[in-house]
């Protein structure tokens, strides 16, 4: 599709626009996906404008305001709309800043996993032979471990912290991309347009990245969306287990870890960060379902 022979750029742009319109037509038929997209856009805006939206500094401790309930409960105040945590920090402000972490985690993890997975999958599917065997056996080994366990052990090796947690999660998620890419490349490599490009003198690198890869993108985009939400969940889980972002970072999973001992006394310190994770992940998964419907005609029936 992308490796078309259309000469004029104008014509190419029209084709692109048409494809986009067609994509939106299918995507917008799934109402859940549109709602998910709207929530996601809202979240991005919140993350970008966090300093303007947050009523307080997310790590400032108000010493006379420990465990203040939300404003609608007795003892609550509107200056801390969702209450404060055990050391007097404003929960709403922490949640607003936390959206930056979650979205950044998703974006960075998926980028690393995509880059690694696509490269390995392209190499395996394109060259076959021992390269293929070596790469795919390593992927099998990674997939043999429960993902969270492997990420935990990797973080234990690298040292706890958000950056190391992201690297660990990316390493755990990338075999899915490698497998998908390999399968797609093997299916595409036999097609005539690839053979003709090769006959025309295209080198391996060009064949891999410019000729074949653009035609394997649909399943990769769907998988990337799924991995985006997985990455956020896993990073939050690592934070919850004390191996991800470290306090006082307002990362949602880390907030939950700090809130654990107060669950029976102050429901709000536990409820809101988890709700934020759930809404974010749900929105991304809704978009993922819509993307799958729009991009992958084989799965459209389900």
């Amino acid at each position, binding site marked *: 599709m992308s490796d078309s022979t259309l000469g004029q750029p104008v014509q190419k742009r029209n084709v692109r626009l048409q494809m986009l319109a067609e994509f939106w037509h299918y995507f917008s038929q799934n109402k859940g996906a549109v709602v998910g997209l709207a929530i996601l856009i809202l979240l991005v805006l919140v993350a970008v404008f966090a300093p303007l939206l947050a009523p307080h500094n997310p790590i400032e401790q108000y010493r006379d305001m420990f465990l203040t309930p939300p404003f609608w409960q007795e003892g609550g105040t509107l200056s801390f709309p969702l209450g404060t945590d055990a050391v007097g920090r404003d929960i709403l402000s922490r949640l607003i800043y936390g959206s930056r972490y979650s979205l950044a985690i998703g974006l960075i993890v998926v980028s690393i996993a995509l880059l690694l997975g696509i490269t390995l999958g392209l190499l395996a599917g394109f060259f076959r032979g021992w390269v293929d065997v070596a790469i795919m*056996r390593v992927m099998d080994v990674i997939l043999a471990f429960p993902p969270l366990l492997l990420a935990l*052990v990797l973080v234990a*090796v690298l040292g706890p912290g958000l950056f190391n947690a992201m690297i660990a999660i990316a390493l755990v998620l990338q075999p899915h991309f490698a497998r998908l890419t390999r399968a797609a490349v093997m299916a595409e490599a036999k097609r005539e347009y690839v053979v003709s490009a090769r006959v025309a003198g295209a080198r391996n690198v060009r064949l891999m990245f410019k000729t074949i890869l653009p035609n394997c993108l649909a399943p990769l985009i769907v998988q990337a969306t799924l991995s985006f939400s997985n990455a956020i969940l896993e990073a939050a889980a690592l934070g919850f287990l004390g191996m991800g972002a470290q306090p006082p970072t307002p990362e949602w999973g880390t907030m*939950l870890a700090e809130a654990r001992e107060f669950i029976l006394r102050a429901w709000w310190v536990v409820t809101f960060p988890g709700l934020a994770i759930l809404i974010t*992940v749900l929105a991304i*998964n809704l978009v993922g379902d819509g993307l799958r419907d729009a991009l992958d005609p084989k799965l459209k029936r389900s």
Partner: protein
Amino acid sequence: MLRFLFSKLLLIVPTFIGITIVAFGFVRVLPGDPVLLLAGERGMNPDRYQALLHQFGYDRPIVVQYFDYVWGLLHGDFGISISTKQPVFQEFLNLFPATAELAICAMFLAIIIGIPAGILSAVKRGSIFDQATMGIALTGYSMPIFWWGLLLIILFSGILGWTPVSGRISLFYYFPSVTGFMTIDSLLSGEKGAFTSALSHLILPSIVLATIPLAVIARQTRSAMLEVLGEDYVRTARAKGLSHKRVIGVHALRNAMIPVITTIGLQIGMLMAGAILTETIFSWPGIGKWMIDSISRRDYPVVQGGLVLIAALVMFVNLVVDLLYGLINPRIRHQ
């Protein structure tokens, strides 16, 4: 069938070797000197250092050390825990029934709710029931289960006071472990109220651990069912005048179950990951909590051994699922 079994077994060998390399390499890439890490808190002098170096075999070539390690694994030697001084394999065997009981209970819940929900959704496609079920399923699929567990504790233990917060059974009961499954042991003990206590401890963790598999199974059953309902043989069955129930229950369901069984098998690895979080929240004394405690205690022999054992377990379950798959679906077997 034998050839099918053999080819599957053959595929497992390189993966298992890879797993042992990961577990073996793990301790070696840790920051810090392995001898200092393994030696504990006692004082260290050059003589003792040399002695320990020799005792742990670190003065030999790395390849020899690796083969020595694998040789030990094959003979059930998974190392000794630093904190309890117990063999890692023994600890694993002691704790495994707790995780197995929880996982089986969770999987049971996920299957008996997920499959009927998926079938009904497919049959009533587009109805309010279908939309609600799929909405709930996607929410379950997106759930941070560690938070979900905390919420259930707030509601059922805190506000309603129905269930205990943690552990496997009330401290009032004591009886010898026969099967390692608390619910069965409590029945065998004949103590009054013991079974109810065990069950009330089991229910919340099971719900939490079941959440994601339940959502996945419901979604997968629905889409497999929809696919099958569009096939020619279903139309033929209808045309023959078979009842709606028989077409759905026999002709469609049996074929739709094939991908669902694969999905269920794939959930085992997820279940182990879920067990780490669930057991941490509910202080459930299983291998998930054992692993996370060992990681934070830096008890590396346990982490190392646990990694191999858990990966081997997941691989074994996947093998069984693959074989079952071949058994119920001759098309795969004869490829």
